[in-house]
């Protein structure tokens, strides 16, 4: 039995179903991210686990205990909010110790636990400050300490880094992950930022329109996306549309240039239009001798981004973007130049479902 079981959860607001068929077992100590665009149902699902929304159907169990209909203050889950939600009338120490005071713990125990938490978030000297005297990053760390102080069974974080600038986000997500690993606490993290999800998670749940698109490790989600949505949402993707020429052999013609995938194209007939996808990092430019698939095109756009040079090659209807490292000894290609791109069969992803041409 998993530590946290989310069992066939469904949530509807009136006639609109915002979460459906949500099944997810989470092991103790696991770090799970819910990743998806705005409105996909990830926060609603998190709020159902927290108890702030009541599921229309389904069940939630924590360590074997059914909590589906329990109030949030009866579930022993800690929550960190996007807006920090620190209590303005309390100091940092007051905020961190709030849950323990509510539970009527002894004063000495509260003081010791607060000190421990402030050390954990590396703010031992700021116990006497008020939230308005802290930076955004400091406030979010205090919010994390407050949620952890009560020793929750599950830690829930709702886009906690969205309100922070990029540099602080990167630093803080490493801290959050380190704290979570050290404490071994089961964690659900909601984000729309794929970099956060990929770098922090043991597993990612990719959601779209209230449904789970795919569950997997970051490696699986990125390299083996099962649906078009996952492929295009996670990482950058080149989508190519063409006509299937040999379904069993995985061969497809993109703008009259035939390429092949490592596997056959399932449920396809010859002549059908299908889409295939290719990660930019899988494509090489001109140095294509070892590549199985080669396509001739024309350089349409060259963007110098410092360490990276981003090049787009146009065929006819389709185009491929690829990234190359900047080499001071080699000038970037020019627009209008003919170019040959190459990639391996294994790197070509076949996206599910036939399309109308």
């Amino acid at each position, binding site marked *: 039995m998993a530590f946290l079981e989310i069992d066939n959860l469904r949530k509807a607001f009136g006639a609109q179903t915002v979460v459906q068929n949500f099944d997810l077992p989470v092991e103790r100590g696991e770090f799970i991210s819910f990743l998806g665009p705005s409105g996909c149902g990830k926060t609603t699902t998190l709020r159902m686990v*927290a*108890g*702030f929304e009541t599921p229309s159907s389904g069940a939630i169990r924590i360590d074997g205990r059914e909590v589906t209909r329990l*109030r*949030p*203050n009866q579930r*022993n*889950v*800690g*929550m960190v*909010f996007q*807006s*920090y*939600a*620190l*209590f*303005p*009338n309390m100091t940092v120490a007051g905020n961190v110790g*709030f*849950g323990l005071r*509510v*539970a009527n713990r002894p004063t000495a125990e509260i003081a010791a636990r607060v000190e421990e938490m402030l050390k954990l978030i590396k703010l031992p000297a700021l116990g006497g400050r*008020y*939230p*308005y*005297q802290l930076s955004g990053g400091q*406030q979010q760390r205090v919010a994390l300490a*407050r*949620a952890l102080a*009560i020793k929750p069974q599950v830690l829930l974080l709702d886009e906690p880094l969205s*309100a922070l600038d990029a540099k602080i986000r990167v630093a803080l997500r490493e801290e959050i992950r380190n704290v979570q690993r050290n404490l071994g606490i089961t964690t659900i993290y909601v984000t729309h930022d794929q970099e956060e999800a990929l770098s922090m998670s043991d597993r990612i749940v990719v959601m779209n329109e209230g449904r789970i698109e795919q569950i997997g490790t970051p490696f699986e989600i990125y390299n083996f996306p099962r649906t078009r949505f996952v492929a295009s949402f996670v990482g950058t993707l080149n989508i190519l549309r063409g006509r299937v020429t040999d379904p069993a052999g995985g061969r497809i013609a993109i703008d009259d240039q035939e390429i092949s995938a490592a596997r056959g194209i399932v449920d396809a007939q010859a002549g059908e239009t299908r889409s295939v996808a290719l990660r930019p990092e899988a494509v090489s430019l001109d140095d294509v001798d070892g590549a199985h698939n080669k396509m001739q095109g024309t350089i349409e756009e060259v963007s110098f981004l410092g360490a990276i040079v981003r090049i787009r090659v146009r065929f006819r209807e389709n185009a491929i973007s690829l990234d190359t490292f900047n080499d001071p000894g080699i000038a970037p290609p020019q627009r209008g130049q003919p170019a040959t791109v190459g990639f391996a069969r294994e790197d070509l992803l076949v996206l599910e479902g036939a399309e109308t041409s």
Partner: protein
Amino acid sequence: MKRSRIGSWIAIVVGALYFLVPLIGTFEFSLRLRRGEYSFEAYEIVLADPRFQASFLYSTVLALATIVVGVLLVLPTAYWIQLRLPRLRPIVEFITLLPLVIPAIVLVFGYLRIYNSSSWLPLTGSERTTDLLLMCSYVTLALPYMYRAIETGLRAIDVRTLTEAAESLGANWPTIMFRVIFPNVRVAVLSGAFLTFAIVIGEFTMASLLDRPAFGPYLQLIGANRAYEPAALAIIAFIVTWACMGLIQVFGRGARGSTPDTR
């Protein structure tokens, strides 16, 4: 640009004169009790009058009771409307504005019809129950101001997220209300409290018709029978009201300086 500035200044000066001239006149008149010289004798007489002390004390106690009951009624209501029932806000706002529209004399006659000594709930049957009735009528009179002040204070904080944060940490509703919400709207509550105090201190109609020894009827009695003392009382009443307004500003400014920005 210059013409509009001169126009603004003229408007300010005219407005100030319109307000200040009668006030200065009243104050000057209040100093004339002793013939031929200015003195504060009228003030001494008023402040030494046991009826002044008794009526002021009575109204102060009633004002404090009104404030407590008003806050206990309005704060949870406004909180619940904001948190769970935002659709009811227009209806509640309409109800809270009714005391501004219905004259006090109509209200008190309504009370007398419903709570007179031969009704099912004879609140006018004894002094203490009449005091209770008067306090309830003051709560009604002060409702527009108390509700607006508290609702403004609640809008300035993220009520929903703070409530959810407190709940996730194990707090129940009373804990949330008294340890999280109330401390963060303290300034708004104080604003409503001082407005309520100013209203109650000067209120005449209800106290008079319910025959209670409040400050308003005392002001009217002195005004009907004396010359210089009513002027002194009017100035004292203004000072009390201005002190309340000043305290609202002091507490409001102080809170703004320390109000955290958690966004």
